[in-house]
């Protein structure tokens, strides 16, 4: 045996432990992630561009909200190789994201932009978009690796003061920044950007782009990187559209690059890119190619409070570490430690806990031995405690969910529901769901699921995401939708899910999918079921309305003949008989009238959409497969159905006004102003602007705004 292993060792000429030791050394996080950049979402040029935008925009929104500033954000992508051949798979871009946030004090700039795992959000329990301290420095690192160019930062922390202009590159070996330029300038926001294109010039001339009033403080981050700009699914455009839906309080301006990469093989992995057209945010304006996502509401989301961890949400090791930390800084008692470092621990509970750990209220935290800590930990699991406070969360809210979807998706029915806060691993979270149904949405495709975590759209890894699984596991058939086994429901439907939490459990550092905790998935399903029930009710009601309409049709067809025949026999006035019969027919089929009043709207019941979380846009109603399925053989049908109406077509109405064009032809306000959300009933627009943007001949001045046809909350009908 020995002989054998000896010979083997000789033949292989293996390294000794000492030799190995010479090669064993620190790996810097930056080196690690530079090698594994796909973990951070920089796997291909198109996604890399999107990820960089996302990291910068997330930070900007976080910073603004923390500083209680209503966010104003500009995203500018400059194509630095506009002359490249059409076959080029990628190009070099300069991405600049500017916000009107609080700015960054000079001494933090290197740490924030030049170091991975440095940030203000990791250690606390409070809802924010960023949480890891990786995001923006990773984007800068990717830029550096692909172009060799440093990040350029302009930041102005004081309204009256100067802006810092800093250029820095990360040293991946040391995970530290190397500053190449560092001066103070007056130029903020950088004036150069306003002159980029005819569009930006026109906009800034009206004060709508990077005005010094709107950006009294703030930060501008520019990164040069290798990327690829192409619209569609998983694009910068989609990200910004969805961000606008989930953040109606932000105004976002987007200056896209002059040129879009043509589709090629690489594009095909993003199959269905154009499908997102149906859900394009329509409440945008465009000036010379500049896209504006206007502000929908002027209030910031409710301010969130940082909370201490909940006893039921920590692990034993963490408890030990917390005890050590407390001893190091406070040198206080276990009794005080429990109350100060945890939430929901009252003095009475703390006393109970001390007892459980075999300690008194005066025992020092530092004196707790491991076995005692374990007892304490055990007690944490058993004791009854209130769930963590939920003011650390800022859910979007039913009203704003509806507002966001309404402006983003052309549908006929919208429903939203916001669950109350729940807890996973001691961390509070809250699930919200919304659906849009019918209208212009493709009728036969599988549902589109749009996912958000802390108001950030999640564009990749759908099938790994808890929200996606929740959608699959929900029984949509109960709500009159089709759903092939184990699949998404099919039909004209968009399903939106939002998770708000102090710590969203992502499956990876690139923050693309929510990990599948039972507690989370359960809440998601409950939220979806609430929306589903509303949809089911609506669909039933709609089918009933149609059936009643058909019934009336049948009756109306015959009563003319009957009036004539009776009059011929009795000599009475046929008109009088007809009117009486007609009145009866109307009464008999009153349900069909629910959409036939003044504006063709059903307005009744609650005025407050928050109560019910439903919006109906009757003009958008179209016949769908659902209707046919529902008014199938089991529905009453007259003996002989006339061929005068196609199935699913709307029942003839009593009033001539009802012969409005079919819903599909209806235009939507392309230029709904932020005020479109104001509670004012809109009149129908006289002009019908085309539903599609026409970037070919951009008008200098935004075209006149037609009166918004879909207003909120009063305009659309509620039930």
């Amino acid at each position, binding site marked *: 045996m020995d002989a054998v292993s000896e010979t083997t060792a000789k033949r292989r000429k293996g390294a000794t432990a000492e030799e190995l030791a010479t090669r064993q050394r620190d790996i810097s996080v930056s080196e690690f992630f530079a090698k594994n950049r796909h973990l951070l979402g920089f796997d291909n040029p198109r996604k890399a561009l999107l990820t960089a935008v996302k990291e910068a925009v997330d930070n900007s929104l976080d910073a603004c909200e923390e500083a209680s500033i209503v966010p104003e954000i500009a995203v500018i992508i400059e194509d630095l190789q506009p002359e490249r051949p059409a076959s080029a798979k990628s190009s070099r871009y300069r991405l600049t994201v500017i916000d009107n946030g609080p700015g960054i004090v000079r001494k933090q700039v290197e740490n924030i932009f030049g170091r991975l795992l440095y940030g203000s959000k990791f250690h606390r329990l409070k809802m924010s978009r960023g949480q890891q301290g990786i995001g923006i420095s990773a984007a800068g690192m990717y830029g550096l690796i692909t172009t060799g160019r440093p990040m350029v930062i302009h930041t102005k922390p004081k309204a009256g003061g100067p802006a810092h202009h800093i250029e820095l590159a990360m040293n991946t070996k040391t995970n530290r920044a190397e500053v190449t330029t560092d001066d103070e300038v007056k130029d903020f926001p950088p004036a150069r950007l306003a002159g980029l294109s005819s569009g930006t010039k026109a906009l800034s001339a009206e004060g709508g782009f990077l005005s010094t009033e709107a950006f009294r403080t703030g930060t501008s981050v520019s990164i040069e990187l290798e990327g690829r700009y192409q619209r569609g699914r998983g694009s910068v455009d989609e990200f910004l559209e969805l961000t606008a839906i989930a953040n109606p309080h932000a105004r976002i301006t987007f200056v896209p690059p002059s040129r879009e990469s043509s589709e090629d093989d690489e594009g095909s992995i993003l199959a269905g890119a154009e499908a997102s057209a149906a859900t394009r945010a329509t409440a945008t304006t465009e000036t010379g190619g500049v896209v504006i996502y206007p502000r929908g509401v002027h209030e910031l989301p409710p301010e969130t409070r940082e909370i201490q961890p909940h006893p039921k949400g920590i692990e034993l090791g963490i408890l030990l570490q917390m005890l050590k930390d407390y001893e190091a800084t406070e040198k206080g008692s276990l009794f005080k430690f429990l109350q100060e470092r945890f939430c929901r621990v009252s003095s009475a509970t703390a006393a109970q806990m001390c007892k459980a750990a075999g300690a008194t209220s005066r025992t020092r935290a530092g004196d707790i031995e491991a076995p005692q800590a374990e007892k304490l930990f055990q007690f944490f699991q058993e004791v009854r405690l209130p769930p963590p406070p939920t003011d650390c969360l800022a859910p979007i809210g039913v009203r704003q969910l509806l507002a966001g979807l309404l402006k983003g998706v052309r549908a006929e029915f919208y429903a939203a529901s916001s669950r109350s806060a729940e807890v996973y691993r001691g961390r509070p979270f809250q699930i919200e769901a919304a659906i849009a149904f019918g209208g212009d949405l493709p009728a036969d495709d599988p549902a589109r699921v749009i996912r958000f975590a802390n108001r950030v759209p999640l564009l990749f890894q759908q099938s790994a995401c808890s929200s996606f699984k929740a959608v699959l596991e929900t029984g949509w058939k109960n709500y009159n939708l089709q759903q092939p086994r184990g699949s998404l429901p099919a039909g004209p439907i968009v399903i939106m899910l939002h998770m708000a939490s102090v710590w969203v459990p992502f499956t990876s550092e690139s923050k693309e999918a929510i990990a599948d905790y039972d507690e989370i998935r359960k809440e998601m399903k409950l939220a979806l079921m609430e929306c589903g029930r509303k949809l089911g009710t609506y669909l039933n009601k709609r089918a009933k309305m149609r059936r009643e309409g058909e*019934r009336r049709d*049948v*009756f109306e*067809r*015959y*009563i*003319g*003949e*009957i009036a*004539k*025949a*009776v009059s*011929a*026999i*009795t000599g*009475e006035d046929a008109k*009088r*008989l007809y009117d*009486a*019969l007609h*009145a*009866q*027919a109307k009464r*008999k089929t009153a349900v069909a009238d629910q959409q036939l009043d003044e504006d063709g709207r059903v307005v009744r019941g609650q005025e407050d959409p928050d109560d019910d979380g439903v919006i109906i846009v009757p003009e958008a109603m179209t016949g769908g497969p659902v209707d046919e399925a529902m008014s199938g053989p089991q529905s*009453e*049908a*007259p*003996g*002989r159905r*006339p*061929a*005068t109406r196609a199935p699913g077509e709307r029942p003839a109405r009593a009033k001539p006004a009802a012969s409005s064009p079919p819903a599909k032809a209806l235009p939507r306000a392309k230029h709904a102003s932020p005020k479109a959300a104001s509670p004012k009933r809109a009149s129908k627009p006289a002009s019908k602007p085309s539903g599609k943007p026409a970037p070919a001949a951009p008008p200098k001045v935004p075209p006149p705004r037609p009166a918004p046809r879909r207003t909120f909350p009063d305009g659309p009908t509620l039930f």
Partner: protein
Amino acid sequence: MAKKTTHSIAERDARTQHKIVELAKDISKMTLSGREPQLSIPTRTKSNTLWNRKKGILEMGDGTADRPLFDLKTAKQFMQTMLHASTIKDLIEARKTSSLRGVFYKAKHTVAGTKENTFDTQDESDPILEDLEVALGALREELHVFAENRGSMVGNITIVDKGDEIDCRRMGSGGYALPSIVEPDVIQFKKCEAKFILHVEKGTVWNRFNEDRFWEKHNCILTHGAGQPPRGCRRLLQRLNQELGLPIICVLDSDPWGHYIYSVIKQGSISLAFESTRLAIPEAKFLGIRAKDFRQCGLDDAVKIDLTENDIKRAREIAAYPWFEGHKGWQKEIQAMLTNGFKMEVESLITKDISYVTEVYVPERLKAKDWLD
């Protein structure tokens, strides 16, 4: 006499007219007072048909069905009923009569503002007229409606039809075509020597008997009803039976359909149960074809026609009719057919000889009084 008839006809028309106006007035009253208009129509269904054991006929019960206007199932029928009521009122007013088909065409048009017809086929129209008959309590002739002639008669009888004397021995090969209305004011029996009536199912069989001058040899009347005999044929047979005391002997196919025709002649039908007293002939007899004939007459295998599943079902239904249920002869007959597993038409006797049926089969059976009743 003629004058009196005209007078009574005018009276009768006025009565019918009045009934129609009342019906329409009811509807208009309901309409104008805000009640939902509905017609009430005696039901012509099995459940509303009663078997009068004593009289041996089917009678209509007093069940009625509502026909509301504001119900998808009945809306169209409601309209159709009113259209026909109006048509009939016009007919009576104009002192004209019309065929069933004529009434159908008169009322058929597209519903104003649609492509839908008030009536699509005559099959839709005829039952509505029958509904009106029962709803108004007026017979078809009182509504000035008649059906097409169907069925023929020859034999030792002379009748008067609308004043024309008709000697039924001199009707050539076609026979006297049976009109749909044969009431005493239209047809009177002038002179009859015949001793019975031989009623056969179809024209083809009737032709055989007529060509062989069966009625002459056996001193009878020969009729057929072109399958299921229409009201005119049945009414005439009943009058001959009741007024002249002539027995009715039927020669029908040996299959459920033949048995059913016999049943209708004998006790009336469900859909016309309201007319049974005028139509049913309880003492009608069934001479053949019998299930036993295949053996007894030594017929060829080629004449067998397999019973279908539907036939078997129908046969069982017929066996369960209350008037057949306790009838040993009929139970045996139907059972024998089912056991055979095949049916036979009267024409199958031709395989023996072209005139076997007229010269051997029927005379032998008559002589032996071998029939079911």
